[in-house]
């Protein structure tokens, strides 16, 4: 994107203040710099030659969950996410990716503090082993200091990831492609497994996309456009070559990457752009695929609910908000668990994960997340289901902090239980 494009994007902002009403971060910060209007003003100032401090600017632009609420509420539809990501990318080129986001393995580390971080990570029991997890994996952005850092509660990395657990020839070809994503492959392989088996239950042949380095979203939101673009390019070429009929995403954020974000990484009119269109046309969220596949029609009637209303659904910002796929997940749940599903209190509150925001400012992320799960639990929800990897990571952690009896699952786990109930 050229500066003039950015100017056109920011120029639509009327500074009316609507973004203040929906911003997830504003109640935490109570300062204009947190909201879209402030960030747009900063970028406008930079574009008009105001010579600020690049690091302070970077700080301001990274202090955002990219939940997209401002963009959806904006009377002028200012593309805030696009603007913020573009600003982050420009700054990353100028001052480097912030130390706390520097990739640990396989990539050049520019910041002087990086060696220290690497050492700390090595000391932590749960470092991400370079041999085991692809160097391009988004997990490195999400856990620069290892999974156990900052007193997070996360499960121990399982011995084997989901894809690793597949047989050599298993799920290599099929009309449906499953894009598992880093987290559901490595951290919660059970989600990868249940998604795979439930999609396979549709009767269609299913291939699991094995070459996925990473969807590229964590790199993109970190301002690392080059890594994001190279992930995107590799994925798009291979996905196109496999010629799947549809590509199913258990994770809403991975889906967003292919449905929207890749288009700002790839120049129009190139063959790769055509590949991106091909992929976007076939990319579908897990719930929508299940509904269209007919597999749910084979479900036995859900059991009479003794636990009526105990299962809720959490709306991932990107999946429900940006992509509008909230009703589909609810429909799937209603059919899989019947009256055990009920609308959850605060279903559309952001979980506070925000991709790499959680790493950047864990205390704030945790306050937003604890509030999220507490509101849900007070409303009577005992199981929070959702369909995004970041949300699962965050809410499991938050549940452990506030109410260990609260379960957090992916909807695929519930569908699996219903389909294969004995």
């Amino acid at each position, binding site marked *: 994107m050229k500066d003039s494009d950015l100017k056109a994007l920011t120029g639509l902002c009327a*500074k*009316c203040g609507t973004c203040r*009403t929906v911003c997830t971060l504003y109640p935490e910060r109570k300062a*204009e710099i947190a909201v879209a209007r402030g960030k747009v003003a900063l970028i406008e100032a930079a574009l008009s030659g105001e010579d600020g401090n690049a690091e*302070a600017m970077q700080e301001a632009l990274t202090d955002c969950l990219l939940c997209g609420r401002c963009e959806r509420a904006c009377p*002028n*539809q200012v593309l805030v996410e696009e603007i913020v990501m573009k600003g982050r990318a420009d700054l990353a080129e100028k001052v480097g990716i912030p130390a706390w986001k520097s990739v640990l393995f396989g990539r050049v580390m520019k910041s002087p503090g990086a060696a220290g971080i690497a050492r700390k990570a090595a000391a932590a029991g749960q470092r991400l082993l370079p041999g085991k997890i692809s160097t391009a994996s988004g997990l490195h952005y999400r856990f620069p200091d290892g999974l156990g850092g900052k007193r997070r509660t996360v499960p121990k990395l399982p011995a084997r990831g989901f894809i690793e657990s597949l047989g050599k020839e298993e799920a290599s070809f099929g009309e449906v492609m499953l894009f598992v994503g880093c987290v559901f492959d490595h951290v919660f392989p059970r989600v990868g497994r249940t998604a795979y088996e439930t999609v396979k239950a549709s009767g269609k042949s299913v291939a699991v996309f094995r070459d996925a380095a990473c969807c590229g979203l964590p790199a993109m939101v970190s301002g690392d456009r080059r890594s994001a673009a190279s992930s995107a390019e590799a994925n798009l070429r291979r996905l196109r070559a496999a010629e799947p009929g549809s590509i199913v995403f258990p994770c809403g954020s991975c889906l967003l990457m292919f449905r929207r974000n890749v288009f700002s990484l790839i120049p129009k009119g190139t063959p790769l752009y055509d590949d991106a269109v091909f992929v976007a046309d076939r990319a579908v969220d897990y719930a929508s695929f299940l509904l269209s596949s007919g597999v749910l029609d084979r479900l036995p009637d859900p059991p009479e609910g003794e636990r009526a209303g105990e299962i809720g659904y959490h709306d991932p910002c990107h999946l429900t908000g940006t992509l509008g796929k909230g009703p589909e997940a609810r429909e799937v749940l209603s059919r899989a668990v019947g009256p055990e599903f009920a609308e959850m209190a605060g279903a559309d509150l952001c979980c506070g994960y925000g991709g790499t925001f959680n790493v950047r400012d864990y205390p704030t992320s945790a306050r937003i997340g604890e509030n999220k799960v507490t509101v849900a639990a007070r409303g009577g929800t005992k199981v929070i289901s959702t369909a995004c990897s970041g949300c699962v990571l965050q809410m499991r952690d938050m549940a452990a902090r506030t109410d260990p009896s609260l379960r957090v699952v992916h909807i695929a786990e519930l569908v699996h239980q219903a389909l294969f109930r004995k």
Partner: protein
Amino acid sequence: MNPEALSALGDLFGDRLRTSLEARICYSFDATGKKFLPDAVVYPVNAEEVRRTVVLANRHRFPVVPRGAGSGFSGGSLPVHGGVVLSTERMDRIVAVDGENLYAVVEPGVVTGTLKEEVRKKGLFYPPDPASLKFSTLGGNIAECSGGMCAVKYGVTRDYVLGLEAVLGTGELVRTGVATAKGVVGYDLTRMLVGSEGTLGIVTRATLRLIPLPESAATLLALFDGNRRSAEAVNAIVAARVTPSAMELMDRTAIDCVQALMPVALPEGTGSALLLEVDGPEGQVEREADLLTEVCRAHGAIEVRRASDAHGRDDLWKLRRSISPALRRLAPVKLNEDIVVPRNRLSDMFDFLSDLAARKRVAIVNFGHAGDGNIHVNIMISGTDADETRRAHEAVEETFRKAVEVGGTISGEHGVGISKAPFLEMEVGPLGVAVMKRLKGCFDPNGILNPGKIFLDEAAVRG
């Protein structure tokens, strides 16, 4: 600002004093599109911190500019002479809601919509409803004496301010008014402060009048071929002795601006629309809604639609509230005026405005509170064509002259700020200006509070 002053503020506010360029840029704007960089931003959390800020300002002679949500249209919160922007964002507690005596006590940073929602839960009603109510603050509303959609029936902010606590320009904390239904002891300092645009005092707490929440409401959208007919319908409604809680007019261009956000099907020939609401006891609302429909039809409405449920009502209101920011889609610069004329001169005013647009070759979009005779006249320009800009400013001046000439005012609810300062005297006359300046001297002898506003000021005009 001198380093000594900044260090004193640092002692007072710690990390709630911000001086980085980035932090200051974020407090350099409001909804006017103009920008003035402050030297610092502070976030007080109580009246004492506000008071001590103003005391420091008197000692070191720096301006203090109070700011709520920065959503004003006249530049009220712009730091035209630099100094300190005092943000009330962190003074945002609703201190009390008294359902027996029907009042609420709030800090200035409470968002208007938040108070409305909070008292609604108790069956109470805080009527003022500026289009910005979801983000604008009560402190800002009081400073500007904000109006809104329901002013035609319920009045404006000043009608709901019973008493105030405020820090004057001297750094003294004054309490004005009452927490009772009546009170006539001495001069009405409360009304003096309401609408004073932060130039006389900084409100640190307000006692606001509440009324019982109306039982029900009905919302209608009546479509006409043009503004003249809409205006005639408004007068016919008043003549029919109905007082709707809102009579909002939108011209065709205004509606088209929000079409991208929320499509509205319009029959052919639609040139203007009235958004009408009646509230009260259920039976009465039904009767009045029917009557409004009848009156509109009799006065040439092409179509009258009635929202069938709360959801439909919200949609109609969202349409109306989105117009102002959405005008940005038409042109980058909006000269946004809010004249008021006697209701029975509305038609003449609309004729004058369409003639003016043609004569000055500028696009003029009109919408607003037709029931109050309050028209938001928006002159849309590129901002890059000097001749067009000159013609637009001529159009503004002619509009103001016309408004005053027919017995109206140049601003119904946005305030003077910097954008109307050049025309203050046109309406209130030289003596009016002189008396106002004398009063300013009583409240703020050193000119600390929000300098460059209301009265003509070269620095402000340049911005």
